[in-house]
């Protein structure tokens, strides 16, 4: 019933959420300098068998996690 008082998220909150995502992705880019080349290579290999729609590579602690989305 108090939802009437709750307006949309304040812009500072939106800024914080957006920054967290942007910075996480920026940091991945600098942590894996060969990221783009690796992405292309993996897409080439998998496309021999299945079409790829998206690929996500990120650094998790000391390992690299690769998620391939098929079309």
């Amino acid at each position: 019933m108090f939802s009437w008082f709750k307006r949309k998220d304040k812009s500072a909150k939106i800024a914080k959420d957006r920054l967290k995502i942007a910075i996480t992705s920026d940091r991945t880019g600098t942590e894996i300098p060969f990221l783009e080349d690796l992405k292309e290579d993996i897409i080439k290999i998998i496309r021999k068998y299945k079409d790829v729609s998206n690929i996500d590579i990120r650094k998790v602690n000391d390992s690299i996690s690769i998620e391939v989305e098929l079309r």
Partner: protein
Amino acid sequence: MSKIIAVISGKGGVGKTTTTANVGLGIALNRKQCVVVDFDIGQRNLDMILGLENRVVYDMVQVMDGEVTLDQALIKSKASRNLFFLPASQTKDKSVLDSEKIGKMLQELKEKFEYVLLDAPAGIESGFEHTIEFADAALVVVNPEVSSIRDSDRAIGILDSKSKKAIAGEDVEKFLIINRFDADMVEKGEMLNSEDILDILSIELIGIVPEDRGVIDASNQGQPIILNPKAEAGKAYTRIAKRLTGEKSPIVEPRAKNSGIFGKLKGMFS
């Protein structure tokens, strides 16, 4: 032991030069020998903020090239006998910078001064990398605004991967200055507060400088705002200089003008 402190930001226009001038002068007014060096080769700004533009004869590139001695190029501040200034070159571009020469010059500065503050160029190009190369610590200047915070994170990343100290596996101290903080906007939820910024950047906070119209008035006259005892921004820089030189000084979160009793209480205890 003396210390090289790089003043960095990532994005330009957040008040890096103003911060260098004021914190440097604050350190000097705290009776410590301090030199501020304009590393923004080709753009020369710090001389104007310090009101020393008419005294510039030689610059740091001439010192590095051995054309003149350090003593010939150093300019004494009008506001404190403990503060000296080393100007940037205006005619040459950033490509003249050479690690070995920079290292040698900074070593010489370290022998003369307790605090060596380097005003980094904006961006994260080669000029920036040379500024952080020999840094023992960094003052990271941000505005409570998305592009400034994002770019500062990249600058911190370069500091942590390319400075000599970081490469040697040592810790480069990092201190965050939130500049141009507008308490009224923060209270309305229209601007990131200090807690949010610290949560995103996770480095140590050393001070919050409120948005202050006096800063432009001060730079118009070449009189850093720290010399104005009534200015809120000046007081904030004084506190930052104290903390940087190891004195105890509280971090004061600027208050909104009409914050009511709760805001006032919070202000008292923080």
